[in-house]
């Protein structure tokens, strides 16, 4: 087998070349600005300033970094957990063919096909705390008496944006896990049933272990994507109210779009990548078994 490695490497090289040219090279250039005073507001001075951008981002008086960090963690893990659990549930429901399954999946999976900004726009209208659809429906059903400030009350704001992210993200897990589930051999279930396993036991002893590799790789990738997905929050709350939904990615976007401070934005992306990298290593070492590629 090893004798083909040089040839096979050639198949991989074009991809590596593209990624080096279009991701790694600009990444290095971008990260260098993290150590410079680099504000488009005034480019006459772009000297190197060491870790000042990091200090400024972490020590911001208006935007408590601790809170942003905590928000980021809630955003990632709450979104990921519910996207995954609901996506898995949907995949299980769709696993056996039924009449109209194709149409049904088209209708539940379309949310993935919307642009981030359109999602933010649409849902901030739905979640409006005065004349929004969600309040109107809940009030008509008699579930609440007065409108809820989904996006203006700090208690609900984070929950609301996570709900939207879950709404958007279920299809990814739904499709990936649905595919993976199809490959669980029936014999395994039969064997488990003969051994007297109930539904729950079969699920945890047969289904989950069989699709585990897909779970590991999809949750890992999804986590990275959620971390770098500021559009929904940016469109719905702008990180407010009072910093309640501000995450690292929105703060970075704000630095670029409104403050033109590329130095601090790069510093924040440095932190984003460091967090993701550390987390990935932890995650992989915790989930990996001896002989598997992640």
């Amino acid at each position: 087998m090893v004798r083909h490695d040089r040839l096979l490497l050639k198949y991989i090289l074009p991809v590596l070349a593209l990624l080096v040219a279009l991701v790694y090279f600009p990444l290095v250039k971008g990260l260098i600005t993290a150590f410079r005073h680099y504000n488009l507001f005034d480019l006459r001075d772009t000297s190197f300033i060491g870790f000042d951008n990091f200090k400024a981002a972490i020590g911001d008086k208006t935007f408590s970094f601790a809170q942003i960090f905590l928000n980021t963690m809630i955003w990632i893990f709450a979104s990921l957990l519910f996207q995954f659990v609901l996506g898995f549930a949907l995949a299980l429901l769709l696993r056996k063919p039924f009449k109209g399954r194709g149409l049904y999946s088209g209708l539940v999976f379309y949310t993935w096909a919307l642009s981030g900004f359109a999602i933010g726009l649409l849902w901030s209208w739905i979640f409006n705390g005065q004349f929004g659809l969600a309040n109107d429906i809940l009030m008509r059903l008699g579930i609440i008496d007065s409108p809820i400030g989904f996006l203006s009350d700090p208690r609900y704001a984070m929950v609301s944006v996570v709900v939207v992210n879950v709404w958007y993200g279920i299809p990814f897990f739904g499709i990936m896990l649905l595919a993976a589930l199809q490959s669980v051999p029936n014999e395994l279930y039969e064997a488990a049933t003969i051994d007297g396993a109930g539904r729950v036991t079969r699920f945890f002893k047969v289904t989950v272990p069989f699709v585990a590799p897909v779970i590991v790789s999809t949750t890992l990738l999804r986590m990275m994507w959620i971390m770098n997905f500021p559009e929904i929050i940016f469109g719905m709350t702008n990180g407010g109210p009072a910093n309640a939904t501000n995450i690292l990615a929105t703060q970075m976007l704000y630095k670029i779009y409104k403050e033109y401070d590329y130095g601090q934005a790069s510093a924040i992306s440095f932190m984003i990548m460091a967090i993701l990298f550390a987390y990935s290593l932890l995650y992989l070492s915790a989930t990996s078994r001896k002989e598997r590629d992640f």
Partner: protein
Amino acid sequence: MKRIVLVVMVVLAATLAISCGASNGKVQLTFLEVLTSPERTAMINGIIADYEKLHPNVTINLISPPYESADNKLTMMLNNDEKLDIIEVRDYTLRQFVNNKKLENLEKRLAAWSEGKDLLPIALASARTADNIAYIIPQFFYIKALFVRTDILAAKGITVMPKTFDELIADCKKVTNKKKGQFGFDWRGKSSEFKFSDLIQLSDVPNIDPNNIYKTADGAFSLATPEAQAALVKYVNLFKDSVPSDGINWGFNEQVNAFISGVTPFLIQDPDTVSLVDKQLGRDKYTVIPLPVGKSGKAVVDYGFASLGIPSYSKHKDAAWDFIKFFSSAKENAAFCKQYGPLPVHASTYADDPFFSTGVYQAWRTEMSDQDHYLFVKYPLGSEKWPAWPQTHEQTMQSLLLGKISPTEATAKFADYWK
């Protein structure tokens, strides 16, 4: 590997060949607008078509990036010396482009332009915003006025329009019936919300420096004056009494939605909002009146503007200037403003065309001519602290409205920021 490099080279060469195109003796100008909307783009294309008819050797390519990312794209293009000959510059971006030496000094051209003498004093002042040098020619002014739902107020028995902010606040309270979903004031809680609180707060302060709204004539920080602090409390109470608590998260779209659906009958907005409200509501249900004044007897009115400029590296500066002259002529400017909404820049337009002094535009006409009651002020857009200010103010104000900090603490934070 060699083969890969070769393929990449070929692809790039092909790209270059396609993107360059032939020039065949014609002058090709590139014009980038930033305050894009599909209707506005169509109007600009109309003006371009007229100009090209008069100047067959010139073609103008219009770039219309979506409004939300247009400034960013323009910045990026300028910093890379991308082909641009005419650019739309906003009050917010001017300083940055001047700092980075991306704008051509237009003083000589302005002096030689016959219609330049017709520009309003405020337009000339705006042209020279940066370093007192005319880098730009203002095209449109955005000045706030009070939009009023006459139908709703009439139903509540309010027929006399508020002349002071205190009267406005009292009216808002009178209209409000929270149980029925009726509120008074159309709050702005995010995205440039400071313009609304500053207006109400600082109109109570007697001696605002017109060159920097955050300073008084004697150099003190205006938001920390006793009058401004008292007005801040008033502003917070207005929110508690007459605004849906959701207002804290309202931007422009929510404001418009609240006004059109009738939730709040008082809205403070720019003239380009008129056409939208006309389309979605109808002129019979609302009107626009001059801004109320504060305890100082005046309203401090900030004026936003959009303008045209020429990149310093443009290769067709004369041709670009010729188009700018055409675009900024009293005739074109007035016609454009009529369709698009904002206020035109020539004195003769206001004198000749009743459109801009009657109907809803009467409100703006009053504000612009009544110097006893309206003080036009500038924001410190040139300060390096400026770019981060809007978000700082927004999050601090939201904390205040949520009761997380006191008005005194909020003022202290503002003062600390501008220290």
